[in-house]
């Protein structure tokens, strides 16, 4: 499976949920809490669905929505945990 990186995630964040006022989405956001970036649980649910489409994996409901920062999602998606769809 191809690697999922920060730029991939950034693209999905912008595409799914847009960008909030005053947020520099193109900056160093790896460890910035999603709450601070303006992405709530619905946004993360949306992003999880798009990751499934893009990466050809199945993400169990409830797993991504609880993640706090972008790095957690990136590590999770790149781990061996996820089944192919």
């Amino acid at each position, binding site marked *: 499976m191809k690697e999922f990186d920060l730029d991939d995630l950034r693209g999905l964040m*912008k595409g*799914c*949920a*847009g*960008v*909030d*006022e005053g947020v520099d989405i193109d900056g160093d956001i790896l460890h910035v809490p999603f709450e601070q970036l*303006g992405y709530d649980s*619905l*946004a993360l*649910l*949306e992003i999880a*669905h798009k990751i*499934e*489409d893009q990466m050809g994996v199945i993400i169990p409901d409830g797993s991504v929505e609880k993640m706090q920062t972008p790095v957690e999602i990136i590590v999770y998606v790149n781990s061996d945990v996820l089944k192919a769809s």
Partner: protein
Amino acid sequence: MSATALREDQAVITGVGVIAPTGFGLGPHWEATLAGRSAIRRITRFDPSVYSCQLAGEAAGFSVEEHLPTRLVTQTDRMTHMALVAADLAIADAGIDLSGLDEFEAAVITANSSGGFEFGQDELQRLWTRGPRSVSAYLSIAWFYAASTGQLSIRHGLRGPCGVVATDQAGGLDAVAAAGRVLADGVRAVITGGTDASLCSWGFVTQIPGGRLSRVADPDRAYLPFDEQASGYVPGEGGAILIVERADHAADRQAAGYGVILGHAATFDPPPWSGHGPRLADAIRLALRDAGLEPGEVDAVFADAAGIPEADEIEAAALREVFGAGQVPVCAPKAMTGRLYAGAGALDIATALLAIANDTLPPTGAAIRPRADHQIDLVTGAPRRAPVGTVLVVARGHGGFNSALLLRGM
């Protein structure tokens, strides 16, 4: 009217934001209205050629990207885009600092009747072409009537008694009246009014079978309220958001204010088999009683103007019954915007407030010739200069909703 004549909790309208087919902003809308420039055209938003009704009042001058961050645009429908931006206009117009109020002292009460139709349509298409997991998670919060109230409440941090009123086209008046009522409980300011946006193919498919939309193709001849050739109405999108404040709060911060809500009443028509007639006249009389006014004190009526012959007859009869034949000027500038559903009442209030400020009644637009048997003094053709202090706004919703609201200038 001096400030000392107002009750301390009386509702004063201090800010107005308009997004309408006639213009983006209260000023452009008023200017286009006075000029009699109809905004009804063949739909450009989608290809209407397969539909029997192909006209609408589109708010073409509004592009949401210029006004809201993409985060909000992505998770809401056009009706909420309009509500959020119109609210920004109204808040700036009122010069009110909402962050200076306790969060429970301010509220949001809007009206809506179509919900997030276009957002829902897109998601339905995804559901049936790509499956359930392609449906946006945001559909859950974008489509329902209260979406605009919710987003406004979150955006501005307002946690007073919020709500949404869904009474079809009567909603714009009902919501503003509800906003006025919560001021008695210590709420100081309310964002109110309404917007609706149902101009998408799904929206048309739901409206056409009701048989109330005009099938006339000529934009200048399709929506002719009270005219001999009335053939139904044309839908429009948009509306107005108003800031309503307690009179004492407005006075404390020396807000100028456009006008005051004097009274309101709502009634519901009984079923046809009951032997009782429609209750529009009752709503008007109850509103007058609520305001402590006699019919003779009303300077103008902004009519519901359904444009459906039977509905026009009922409205004309109600006006004759309450005011006497031809005794009060009647305006229906909505002939130039189309019927805006939950946005209509609020937009009529906005237009009425400027009519009061300018002692000028707006034309109904187009070349409408009211039927003689209606016996109403309809302002047609050109604006009419007249002393305008107190205005009655009337609105009806499909199914039997009647609403009447009385306004007076400051």
